[in-house]
């Protein structure tokens, strides 16, 4: 197995990633840094400073952050309860919470469209109860609900994994030493679950930040996010240079926000080292 020749087993793979990861990336970088006449420019990147582009980016960040926060607030108590009930990894209950993750995400968004539409299921129920119809679809709230629904399992699972790993003795020791529930939560459980939180946040924030399908399907073309801008540049305006420039900016945003989250994870690592 350690034979030198075995490293050549990776050759087909290396050719593949050069062809379909490195070169495509270079293509997008190339388009991002050139204008339609193939001259070098930084203008495509600077486009993000234009109101029409930074406003959707800002909106997307706001929505993605809210979505991540809501997912966390919903998932954390759930994971705590599962931990307290000692619900094991193989149990049906955990299965139930993870199952929707594997169902086609567009079909799940379709479900919400059906619920929220003006003549949809929710309004149908309201009418049956003689309550006034509500305007639900094509609002920011509708897009947010769709995001939360789509990405919630991606928060539940890592949180659950992290909480299950915490040793009962550690938690009991805190109670024995007179710590209140709140103190135990903030001083013991939360810090120990940081790796799970970091996983959850990255798994939710990035797709929420860059989505265009959810905002299109539940926002009725009124809620314009950075993903929609980029999609529009490529699929409709056919302005590849500007689209590539904005994609690069988005890439930088994703990387920066991950570095930011990473920072917390590192801190938790050192602290955990201190405890042990």
């Amino acid at each position, binding site marked *: 197995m350690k034979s030198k020749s075995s490293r050549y087993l990776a050759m087909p793979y290396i050719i593949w990633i050069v062809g379909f990861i490195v070169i495509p990336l270079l293509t997008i970088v190339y388009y991002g840094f050139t204008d339609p006449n193939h001259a070098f420019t930084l203008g495509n990147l600077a486009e993000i400073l234009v109101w029409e582009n930074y406003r959707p980016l800002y909106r997307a960040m706001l929505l993605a952050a809210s979505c991540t926060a809501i997912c966390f607030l919903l998932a954390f108590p759930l994971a705590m309860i599962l931990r307290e009930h000692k619900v094991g990894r193989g149990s049906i209950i955990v299965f139930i*919470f993870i199952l*929707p993750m594997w169902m086609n995400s567009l079909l799940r968004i379709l479900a919400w469209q059906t619920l929220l539409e003006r003549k949809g299921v929710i309004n149908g129920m309201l009418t049956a109860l003689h309550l006034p119809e509500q305007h639900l679809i094509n609002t920011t709230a509708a897009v947010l609900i769709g995001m939360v629904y789509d990405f919630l399992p991606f928060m539940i699972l890592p949180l659950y994994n992290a909480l299950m790993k915490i040793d009962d003795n550690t938690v009991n020791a805190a109670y024995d030493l007179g710590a209140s529930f709140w103190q135990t939560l903030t001083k013991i459980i939360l810090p120990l679950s940081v790796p799970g939180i970091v996983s959850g946040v990255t798994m939710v924030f990035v797709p929420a930040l860059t989505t265009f399908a959810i905002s299109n399907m539940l926002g009725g073309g009124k809620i314009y996010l950075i993903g929609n801008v980029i999609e529009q540049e490529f699929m409709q305006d056919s302005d590849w240079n500007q689209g590539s420039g904005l994609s690069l900016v988005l890439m930088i945003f994703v990387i920066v926000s991950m570095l930011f989250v990473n920072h917390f994870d590192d801190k938790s690592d050192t602290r955990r080292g201190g405890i042990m």
Partner: protein
Amino acid sequence: MEKMKKALSNCYLSLIVLFMYAPIATLVVLSFNSGRSRAKWSGFTTDWYLEMLADDTIMAALRNTLIIAFLSALIATILGTLAAIGINNMKSWSRNTVMSITNIPMLNADIVTGISLMLCFIAFKISLGFHTILIAHITFNLPYVILSVMPKVRQSSKDTYEAALDLGATPIQAFFKVVLPELMPGVTSGFMLAFTMSLDDFIITHFTRGAGIDTISTLVYSQVRKGISPTMYALSTVIFLTVFIVLMIGNYAPEWLSRRKK
């Protein structure tokens, strides 16, 4: 007090389950509704299922989705497993370089990956179609396969392969009889993960698809923008049930089997 806490937490669990499953249940119920209206029940029917089965576009999309998921998972698993073994034997510098390139598709937002592939295909005059979707899916599946196989490669003992060679096995025999069985758990989970990732993808497919080819995701996206037909609900129900059954078997079949043996 303890009782109330229990009741409260059960209540919370039920609410989350309701939130997660009510929309799916709605789709299932509506797939049997004879009227087109989403607001009122006009009688039980299975017509939408028949219509779905008779609809060439839907069936073609379903077929494409499954074929692409299977092929891309298979190819990614083969390439990825070989690569994991190879990478493990590389010098640390080249190993790190290859691994950081491997991780780019995971790091990037899907939209950027999809666009970069589309631009590349068009720039190199590769016409968009089934094959470009397949290439794209293999590309984003590869890191998942490598991630699942890599730990197994690291754990696997280095001596067994050599021992097999010493005992007269050819390298190929040694690979299939000794090395592969050790990696198998990682390989299967890599394949399963790649398969599901491919089934679920919309964004990358959206950018790399060509004339007349749809997967379930892109079909839903274009249908929804036109107006939803109840056949879509029938389709959702079928997909949900399939996912449910496959995951149930994947998760619990081994346990049931072992329990019965005891």
